[in-house]
């Protein structure tokens, strides 16, 4: 039963845990739309009473949500950082109040790990890196010029994926050169327009490939190629997600590779890690969502079936 | 109260030398020099637009003259309103210049809050304000915001503000325009007391008796020029008016019109509204009915309530055209039934100043200038040109913005836009306020023409000669009621004023 003994949760039936989940998105974003049901389902199974907040990627708002959560003295807090660099005070406050914090979806800075009790989720940096690995493989050491479409400017997932991609390219296949980059704001239409413009700016004939930070944007980028009469097939195109929009593109061969991200895995494991901590088990390792590379060969595998 | 004896002349306190002020191309003040001595009351008269207010705003540092210089006790004045205030010049504006949400005390002390290290000493502030209203001898709740005070009280707050500054020169620009005779008497007595204490006062009024009642000297402005400066004993009211007008105006105005009124077209019964306390009134076809009374009597309120511009609490209005009577409940219904309304506030209510004359004329006539709600620009241009011609717009350029025209010409545009509808009833509120003599004559001609063509005309005017001259019948309004009705023949200035003031008249010389 409740370890911190708050007045509010004492009225709950025995065996129930009070848990706050501080998320930066909810049903206002496609990812959250499938993340949340999985999270809630798992919580019901484990006798966890969830209170979910959504800071809409506003770090101040999340800090405030965190204060609300700490004040409510739940048994545990699940944190999905809105902006990774800004969560330390929240973690410190929770620790001061003896509330364990587990982290989901995107991890805290290495220096803050000691304040958390566990992590599960995709490795956003690793996803960028994995997508870069596909790109490196496809480039086979040949000089390859690519365009890059980033997520929403300033957004932490966008930053991590870009860093993972760029740093891996620099380290493993310097033969791949990024000719131009622009934000596509996670939108298909924005991505299509900026991709088309970048093609014009660097000369479409000079472009050998494209990396887009998610499947929605890569779909826009592929449309931009088509609109310019360029066959996407010979180009090296990678992204991240394997969503319902991206998966058919992989099968058709337009998209050479993407990284599977399971939002339901993410939501479910956020609760699983939390319940392990609540049960007193120590979680040693970060529980990374496998950054499964999806290419034409495994695009039909059930374990990478697209979720959103 | 006539100051027949000339006081010994004190030293010159303020002088303006060769002041020139232009607005765009027009010269508002043209090479005017005046000087005011300590302890005197200096009258300034002139027609609307003569440049009185402009000159005073220059003295008070609010406007910077294009040429010339203002000197206070020999020192040239530079640095705007603030410097002028510090030099001891206080101006009571023609238009109320108050902050609605601030209290009486704060308005009196506006711009000169007493402070210690930036903090307002509110006790001192109230004390000074209370002293000032005591000095001018009225009772005002100084903690009430100005919005909750009556118009007359607001006027006294303005005056108290000027007095509280302990000025050397007090300028009052038409302070009595909104006051009743009793209030006016009170103010004039107070000014004489202040002058006796050595204060210099510049006093502007259109009411000639007031000038003769308190002023030591009087200056006449006409079209921006200083026409004459006289000791009050050297002139008479008739002489003064002649100098203001510059010609024998009465000849122009006294055009007597043969009127033979037809059936009642416009009929108001039992109109009640804020400030209007049960007015019945008929206007016949071809008749000009005048509404006289003091400012604040409720004439504007009556007209607006009767036409449905503002809500009324009771009463009915009927318009009868071509034998068909229609009850008018809303303003839009009035307009549909052939009523035209020319409001008091021309610039704010009458015209879209940044639209062309053609557009302004087209607005109430849009239905006839379009087919199936598509406008016909050629027709609009033709229509507007004709109307502009018929009212004598100068220059007759219908593509110019209305705001680029002078006041008189703007008023012609307002009239023109309604002429196009051939109104059966036309209501004009202060049709020639702020309009120069030439335009005034033309507007009068237009009003008469309308009546001659069978329209029922209702005119509100505070300009007595105009009212008497135009009207076939004059109703005098007092306190929201008709205090009396005079036929064109029996109406004269004295009878109207007597009714308007409830039997009390401002003492005339």
């Amino acid at each position, binding site marked *: 039963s409740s370890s911190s003994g708050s007045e509010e949760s004492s009225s709950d039936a025995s065996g129930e845990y009070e848990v706050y989940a501080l998320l930066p998105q909810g049903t206002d974003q496609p990812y959250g739309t499938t993340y949340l049901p999985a999270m809630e389902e798992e919580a019901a199974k484990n006798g966890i009473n969830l209170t979910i907040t959504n800071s809409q990627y506003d770090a101040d708002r999340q800090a405030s949500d965190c204060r609300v959560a700490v004040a409510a003295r739940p048994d545990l807090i699940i944190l999905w950082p809105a902006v990774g660099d800004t969560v330390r005070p929240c973690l410190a406050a929770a620790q001061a109040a003896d509330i364990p914090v587990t982290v989901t979806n995107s991890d805290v800075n290495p220096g803050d790990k000691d304040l958390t009790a566990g992590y599960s989720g995709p490795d956003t940096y690793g996803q960028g890196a994995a997508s870069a690995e596909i790109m490196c493989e496809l480039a086979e050491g040949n000089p390859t010029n690519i365009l890059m479409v980033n997520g929403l400017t300033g957004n932490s997932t966008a930053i991590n994926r870009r860093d993972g991609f760029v740093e891996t390219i620099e380290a493993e296949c310097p033969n791949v050169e990024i000719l131009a980059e622009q934000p596509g704001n996670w939108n298909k239409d924005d991505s299509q327009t900026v991709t088309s413009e970048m093609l014009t700016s660097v000369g479409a004939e000079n472009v050998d490939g494209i990396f887009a930070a998610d499947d929605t944007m890569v779909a826009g980028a592929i449309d931009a190629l088509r609109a310019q009469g360029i066959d996407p097939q010979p180009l090296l195109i990678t992204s991240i997600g394997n969503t319902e929009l991206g998966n058919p593109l992989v099968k058709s061969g337009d998209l050479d590779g993407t990284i599977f991200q399971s939002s339901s895995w993410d939501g479910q494991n956020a609760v699983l890690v939390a319940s392990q901590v609540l049960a007193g088990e120590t979680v040693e390792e970060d529980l990374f969502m496998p950054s499964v590379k999806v290419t034409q060969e495994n695009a039909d595998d059930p374990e990478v079936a697209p979720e959103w | 109260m006539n100051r027949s004896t000339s006081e010994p002349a004190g030293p010159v306190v303020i002088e303006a030398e060769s002041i020139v002020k232009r607005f765009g191309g027009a010269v508002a003040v043209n090479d005017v020099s005046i000087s005011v001595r300590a302890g005197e009351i200096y009258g300034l008269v002139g027609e609307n637009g003569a440049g009185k207010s402009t000159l005073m705003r220059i003295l008070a540092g609010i406007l*910077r003259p294009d040429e010339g210089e203002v000197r206070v006790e020999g020192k040239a004045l530079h640095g705007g309103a603030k410097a002028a205030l510090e030099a001891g010049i206080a101006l009571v504006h023609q238009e109320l210049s108050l902050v609605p949400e601030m209290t009486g005390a704060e308005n009196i002390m506006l711009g000169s809050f007493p402070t210690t290290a930036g903090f307002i000493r509110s006790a001192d502030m109230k004390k000074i304000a209370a002293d000032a209203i005591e000095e001018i001898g009225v009772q005002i709740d100084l903690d009430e915001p100005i919005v909750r005070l009556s118009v007359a009280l607001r006027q006294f707050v303005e005056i108290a503000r000027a007095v509280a500054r302990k000025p050397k020169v007090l300028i009052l620009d038409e302070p009595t325009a909104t006051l009743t005779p009793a209030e006016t008497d009170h103010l004039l007595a107070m000014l004489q007391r202040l002058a006796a204490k050595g204060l210099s006062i510049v006093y502007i009024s259109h009411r000639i008796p007031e000038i003769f009642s308190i002023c030591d000297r009087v200056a006449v402005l006409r079209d921006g020029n200083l026409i004459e400066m006289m000791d009050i004993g050297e002139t008479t009211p008739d002489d003064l008016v002649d100098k203001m007008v510059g010609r024998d105006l009465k000849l122009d105005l006294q055009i007597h019109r043969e009127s033979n009124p037809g059936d009642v077209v416009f009929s108001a019964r039992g109109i009640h509204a804020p400030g209007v306390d049960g007015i019945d009134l008929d206007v016949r076809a071809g008749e000009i009915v005048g509404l006289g009374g003091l400012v604040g009597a409720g004439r504007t309120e009556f007209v607006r309530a009767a036409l449905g511009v503002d809500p009324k609490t009771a009463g009915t209005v009927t318009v009868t055209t071509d034998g068909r009577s229609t009850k008018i409940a809303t303003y839009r219904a009035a307009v549909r039934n052939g009523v035209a309304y020319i409001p008091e506030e021309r610039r704010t209510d009458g015209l879209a100043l940044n639209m062309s004359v053609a557009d302004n004329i087209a607005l109430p006539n849009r239905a006839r200038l379009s087919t199936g709600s598509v406008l016909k620009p050629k027709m609009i241009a033709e229509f507007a040109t004709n109307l502009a011609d018929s009212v004598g717009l100068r220059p007759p350029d219908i593509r110019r913005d209305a705001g680029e025209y002078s006041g008189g010409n703007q008023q012609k545009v307002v009239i023109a836009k309604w002429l196009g509808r051939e109104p059966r009833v036309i209501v004009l509120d202060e049709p020639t306020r702020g309009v120069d003599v030439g335009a005034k004559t033309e507007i009068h001609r237009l009003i008469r023409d309308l009546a001659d063509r069978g329209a029922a005309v209702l005119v509100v005017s505070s300009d007595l000669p105009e009212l008497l001259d135009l009207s076939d019948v004059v109703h005098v309004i007092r306190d929201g009621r008709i205090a009396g009705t005079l036929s064109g023949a029996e109406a004269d200035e004295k009878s109207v004023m007597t009714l308007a003031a409830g039997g009390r008249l401002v003492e005339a010389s």
Partner: protein
Amino acid sequence: MTETATPRETPTRQAPSETGPSQRRAALLQWIAERGIFVFTALLIVFAAIFVDGFASTVNITDVFHRAAPIGIVAVGMTFVVISGNYLDLSVVAQVATSAVIFIGVSNLYGIPLAVGLAVLVALLYGAVNGVAVGYFKANAVIVTLATTYVGLGLLRWLSGGSIFFGPPDGPIRAMGQIRIGPLPLSMIVLIVMALVLAFVLNRTTFGFMVRCVGSNKEATRLAGVSTPRVVLGAFVITALAAMIAGFVLAAFSNTAVSTMSSGFEFRALAAIIIGGTSVFGGRGSILRTLLGVVFVSVLTNILVLSNISFGWQQIAIGALIAAAVSVDALARRAAQ
């Protein structure tokens, strides 16, 4: 920050102005203010055609059109609200997204006619709520449309679950998005048709005339026998219908719809309107100018992207442009007095 004697240098609202500086400078400023957007747009395009590689290509012109169309459609509609003297309609953000989500989401389930019908209803509802509150209740348009934005986006996210909706890859919506005539994508044709229709409505119909009159002087317009609240209501309804069409266009272009896809549209559309030279005080302005404002911003953004300038600098450029455009206008107006 010296105290100044003349009202010319103070922001007094009704203060009479002093005569301007030299007549020639005044005339030049006036000329620029009146025709500036035409000249600047032309200059920018000529500059880009000469100095920016690839700008003049057909493909790139199409991209400029893609940038211009959805914002442009919102902006030409919102021009009515601005001209009517009500600043802007913040809720276009919610309106565009709602329309797009309905267009794709409902089409997938019940077919296009029902989706369009529902979208029209929702647009009319937005127009009615905003227009009644601003027109009949005389409430401030900024606050009213801020409130409807909150409610509208909240409802959209709640009801749609925030999902990303996409039409079948070979569906009719996708086909619509692919239609083009020469270099002109369908979206641009819609924009041009909308601009022509709305320019006609604004300039040549009695309704448009009344919108301009209301913006110029509401009380004078009322006293001319016009029901001014009804005119304001009409302006908001037109804006809402335009936003609805922008939602269709946006959805058709990418064959996807999500509640976040129109973020920033309200201020971007307003920026285009202002850069075009429509007065925020109402009364003055034109659809053609708004169109040019949109083209100007789209060309500028396109040039910056072609030059691989980062997003931050793009924002700075747009902000500076707004400041420059309105400064010229303000200085010219003052010089003219």
